[in-house]
């Protein structure tokens, strides 16, 4: 009897230990599932902060998986009606004032998107958090009042990731993505993404504010605030077509 109890308690201890060291891949997978769905329709406000000025834009976006997304600009008035369409690896742009649909050539991919700290390339890049890196859990930390896994991701030899190291904070309880730090190969911090303001958007709860800060440019920042969102709404692939660019309102 005593031996059996010992054996059982050892088993319990072993299993609980195992529970304390989950597979980082698993954590990240759940994190991704949280912020993406099959499809989503969102309204957001983007603020571009620069040393000499600040610019605000309001936009509406539709997305289906990782392959398709469409962004419509609503404010400011000057840019109203501009549409960006991402189809797999292509980006198309429609500007009402010239009534033209233009595909962005590969050479423009590195240009900034809408003047923000994101590049066009950032929008299309499909580097998979799971497949392109090797992962390791570093420690636990508290962010936004929540206990988080701190996961270190090192890019695999062949993957087209510019950074030499990426560190991600994921909350333990709900797998919210709360922070990302990107590092260069000398170990220097290149940029930081901070997610905050966890709210209910549509039928999900997730961080509604994202702030991207490049480290090498003083006074530069891009802030994205999600104001409303609907997840898993049915959107057909045909919605994400070049022909549809004109019709979006």
């Amino acid at each position, binding site marked *: 009897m005593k031996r059996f109890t010992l054996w059982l308690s050892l088993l319990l201890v072993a299993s609980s230990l195992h529970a304390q060291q989950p597979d980082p891949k698993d954590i990240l997978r759940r994190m991704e599932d949280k912020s993406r769905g099959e499809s989503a329709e969102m309204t957001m406000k983007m603020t571009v902060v620069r040393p000499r000025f600040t610019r605000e834009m309001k936009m509406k976006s539709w997305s289906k998986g990782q392959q398709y997304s469409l962004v419509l600009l609503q404010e400011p008035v000057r840019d109203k009606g501009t549409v960006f369409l991402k189809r797999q*690896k292509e980006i198309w742009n429609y500007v009402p004032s010239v009534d033209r649909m233009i595909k962005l*050539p*590969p*050479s423009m*991919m*590195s240009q900034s998107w809408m003047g923000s700290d994101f*590049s066009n*390339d950032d929008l*299309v890049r499909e580097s998979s958090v799971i497949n392109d890196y090797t992962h390791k859990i570093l420690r636990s930390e508290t962010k936004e009042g929540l206990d988080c896994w701190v996961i270190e991701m090192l*890019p695999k*030899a*062949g*993957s*087209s*990731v*510019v*950074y*030499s190291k990426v560190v991600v904070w994921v909350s333990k309880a709900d797998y919210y993505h709360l922070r990302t730090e*990107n*590092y*260069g*190969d*000398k170990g220097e911090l*290149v*940029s930081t993404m901070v997610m905050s303001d966890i709210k209910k958007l549509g039928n999900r709860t997730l961080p509604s504010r994202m702030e991207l800060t*490049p480290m*090498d440019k003083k006074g530069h920042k891009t802030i994205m605030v999600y104001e409303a969102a609907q997840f898993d709404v049915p959107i057909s692939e045909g919605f994400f077509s070049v022909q549809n660019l004109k019709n979006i309102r």
Partner: protein
Amino acid sequence: MKKTTSKTAGLGFVFRLSWRNIWRNRGRSLSLMTAIFLGLVGGTIAMAMVTGMMEQRFFNAIEKQYSHVQLHTKSWLDEGQAGMAIPHGKQLLDSMAQLPAVRAAAARTLANGLIASPTLTQGVELRGVDASSENTLVKLSEQLIEGEYLGDTAAPELLIGKRLAQKLKVEVGSRLVISFANAAQEVVSGAFKVTGIFRTANAGFDQSTVYLHQHQLQALLGETDAVYELALRLNENDSVPALTAALQTAYPTMQVRSWRELAPELAYMQDSGSVVSYIFVIIILLGLSFGILNSMLMAVYERMRELGMLKALGMTKSRIFLMVMTETLTMALLAGLIGLLTGYGLVAWLGNTGIDLSGYAEALAAFGYDAVIYPALSWQYALNITLLVVVLSLLASLYPALKALKLNAADAIRS
């Protein structure tokens, strides 16, 4: 002084007198001859340095960058997009390499794309090369200033220019991602590591060129054995125009260009550089000539009494003329030719050992020159200058000699 009559004053006497006159006035003669000597030695060395530097620059540009002849498809030169490889490129390379006029040949795979570091993305030309044949053709490994040359063909190695490394804020060992569009207009990308950093004389090239293993680029492009550029280094500079024309006729769909079209500024420098240096040399020679002229003129006026006496003693005008001319000419030619020979000798010696300017290596490298300069002179130049010196000396000696004739014997003795 020997008593002579116009009938017995032989040429020999005149020449001996001239010679003695030169050495009687040692200070003046030596001063003049030193000036001529120094001027010519200095001028020769300066010209030789400039010529040597220009030759070096030309040589470096051909050896390390342009080669003699390059071939591309016309569409590649116009559009620069994937899928515009040279048809049957590999066979073409092999047949070109066999040509007797060709010393070395290499084929490169090219792509226009982007290179990204964590802080910056920049447009570049990607050059996929075969490490050993590239090195034979353009001595790429010698142009490295940091790191190592391409070695392991399986490793994702990159060579980037110093300028580019500075802009991207990376160093040897840094990770960079390159991306470009393939023939199907899809964006392909790959991560690479900086193995070495090079510096050429062309800062623009350093900023926009990246070397990688040829087969790796071909794999990314999805075009096996695709070759976009063929470059040839010939045995003789002179065979370039003929071969270029012949190749262009043989392959009308391609664009065959010689270094003249690839680097017009090089051609310009080759052709025009000498013009400016000749101007300077002529100015120096004019300076010398005026120096001779004035010195001799002064001498003539100072020796009026002596010349007057010679006249009174029966020396004919023509003999006096000849005497003064001979004096001037002897000094000029003696100093001039010794100066030239010394100059050529020094040039030949320095041409072997070289002039070490390593203190200015950086500044020189930026313009395409090496730290050690080898002066050189062409035979044509040497001949031209020698002729010029002789002619100018003759002309310079005429005027004082003419002046010597106009002396009035009586006035001269009296003064």
